[in-house]
């Protein structure tokens, strides 16, 4: 089957199978799982993943062709995104054969939901300074600690957990990766509200949670190298999404504001021109990155520049929109009230603006790194989190 044919078939399948109706509601999870099973059975889940573990064994070309067609639909697959984008690929890359055999196919078929358990309240940008402990006890590990910023954890069956197994060595060298059963009685999942009042994330508490050693991923104390694999997959799936969609329902975009504002005032007009300029500048940059990617030039850390610019634009436009609209924008259920509440999120999720600037400076411009003390000190002697 050539690529064009593959794409036509995918388009047809999507048209016939993607549910058009509202995908929220009480049985949303059940319906999402049902859709995922159909997607898998049709051969569109894990397109590039190895056949041996349940994937289709095809190439990036087929994956891109399917993604291009899928862009016109809203697939009810959000709850599987962590598994498909991060934890699954990590298991394929770094898991044992037994783990791959056990976990990959159910993940691709939507039978089991996954979450990722790296971030902690005391370890934001500096993930490797995390404090959740896993202590070995014969063939099992006992986990205590807290994770945060976890998406879909309330639905998750399994979590990919990074925990500290040795405090006598520098922070990167005492971490181990595990698969943890989210149904274990010692796991507590609590919704975490963001500043807009939404609960899109969770906090997870581990109270003497046991994990069999066979659910360890990679070697003991080598968890950081496994986490780097996961974070690489995360970055790929974020940068693939940057600049695409997301703006459609935003009431602070140029397109939305030109409809709602009085443009008789030359100053309002000029501010809208400024917004247009910034919006176009970033959109064209994203399109150029996409064209380069299609031409085989991998954007690498330059995607972090795009993410930084998107964060700044998101903040800029919500701020501008409220200023131009005036008092009514922050009262009642005005859509801009929600937009200004959500705007900082883009600067904080997936790495702060400061972290993005470090990445661009270090990896794109090749600037000398900040001197680091924290790579050599034993973890127990290192200052971490919030002090005093």
């Amino acid at each position, binding site marked *: 089957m050539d690529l064009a044919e593959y794409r036509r078939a995918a388009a047809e399948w999507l048209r016939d199978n993607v549910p058009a109706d509202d995908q929220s509601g009480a049985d949303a999870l059940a319906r999402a799982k049902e859709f995922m099973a159909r997607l898998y059975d049709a051969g569109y889940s894990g397109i590039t993943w190895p056949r041996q573990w349940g994937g289709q064994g095809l190439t990036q070309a087929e994956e891109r062709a399917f993604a291009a067609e899928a862009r016109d639909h809203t697939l009810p697959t959000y709850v599987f995104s962590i598994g498909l984008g991060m934890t699954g690929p990590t298991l394929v890359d770094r898991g044992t054969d037994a783990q791959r055999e056990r976990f990959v196919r159910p993940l691709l078929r939507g039978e089991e939901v996954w979450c990722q358990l790296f971030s902690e309240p005391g370890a934001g940008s500096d993930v490797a300074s995390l404090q959740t402990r896993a202590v070995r006890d014969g063939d099992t590990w006992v986990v205590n600690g807290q994770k945060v910023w976890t998406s879909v954890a309330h639905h998750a069956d399994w979590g990919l957990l990074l925990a500290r197994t040795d405090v006598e060595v520098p922070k990167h060298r005492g971490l181990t990766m595990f698969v943890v059963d989210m149904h274990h009685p010692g796991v507590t999942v609590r919704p975490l509200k963001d*500043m807009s009042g939404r609960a899109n994330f969770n906090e997870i508490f581990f109270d003497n949670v046991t994990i069999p050693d066979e659910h360890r991923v990679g070697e003991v104390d080598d968890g950081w190298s496994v986490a780097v694999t996961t974070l690489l997959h995360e970055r790929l799936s974020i940068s693939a999404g940057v600049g695409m969609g997301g703006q459609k329902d935003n009431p602070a975009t140029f397109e939305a504001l030109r409809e709602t504002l009085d443009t008789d005032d030359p100053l309002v007009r000029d501010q809208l021109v400024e917004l247009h300029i910034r919006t176009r500048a970033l959109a064209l940059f994203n399109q150029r990155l996409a064209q380069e990617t299609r031409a085989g030039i991998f954007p690498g850390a330059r995607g972090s520049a795009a993410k930084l610019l998107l964060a700044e634009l998101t903040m800029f436009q919500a701020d501008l929109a409220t200023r131009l609209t005036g008092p009514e924008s922050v009262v009642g259920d005005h859509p801009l009230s929600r937009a200004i*509440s959500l705007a*900082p999120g883009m600067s904080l999720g997936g790495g*702060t603006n400061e972290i993005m600037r470090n990445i661009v400076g270090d990896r794109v411009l090749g600037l000398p790194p900040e001197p680091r003390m924290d790579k050599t000190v034993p973890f127990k002697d290192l*200052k971490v989190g919030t002090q005093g």
Partner: protein
Amino acid sequence: MKLVLSQEQQQLREAVRGFLRAAAPLRKAREGYDPQVYARLNGELGLSGLIVPEEYGGAGAGLADLAVALEETGAALLPGPFLATQFAALALTQVPDKELLGGIAEGRVAATLVQPEQDLAFDGTSVTGTLPRVLSGAEAGVLLAPAPDPAPGPGGVVLVAVDLAGPGVTRTPLETLDLTRGQARVTLEHAPARVLGRPPAGSGIGDRLCVALAAEQLGVLRASLDAIVAYAKIRVAFGRYIGSYQGVKHKLADMHGKLEQAESIVRYAAWAADESPGELPGAAALAQAYVGRACFEVARDHLLLHGGIGFTWEHDAHLFYKRAKADEVLLGPPRIHRARLAELLEL
């Protein structure tokens, strides 16, 4: 021109700050208006009557003093009708009314002011119309509003007072971005209204509101900066306090520059209101144009520099961010202050 606080003003600041720290700590701000705290604020400190002339039972202080108090209530994100009542008192210093000024001075009356003029019908005894957004409209007892003068003659505007608990008044509290201070839609249908008088030409009521709001914004700005500076000294990333990174430190230094300038402008504008009425319009527009923007920018960056925790509902950062944004647009789209400046500068 006086840009430095007097000893008395410093004492006032310490008194208000100390009171609010104990009685209205930040963790209570998101619970909303506490009438008891409000009563004590006015009873123990006499804040409500600060600018009420002595003949009406107030302290007869100027806007420079009120600014000191508003900076502190702003920093504490104090919920309730304090700013609204002071807006009303500022109008009443130009159109004095014994009953209302006395009530405000005693802390008995919480009031609010509609500004600028809205579409109200006034037949001489009652008003009719809808006011879509009234600051502290659910908490205030009296509404002051400009209304068309019903007397025969050249027309013009009079200030009227409406009892918000009286007949013909419907109040609907609104969901607001600012979680610490509300607004309400007020519908008046033949609501009894009493004429207080005609604001003298060039009375500068609107200018005084600009200055009073800027004082509150200065407090929000300062408290935001203090909060993130404190956090930068205790939060560690990659083995160092985040405040030691130039990426954070230089931003905070720039924010400090905004604070210094904002404070200078507020002191100047308050002095002008009290001592140099000719300078007031330009100073008031400058205050809103500079301080309103600086306050939001600092509150925004203070939130962003907190990292992920600043985006959570439980953290206080968003309370400052939202108050700063609500204040920035409270008196209208900010460009109106710039347009006013252009006009006053005869550009």
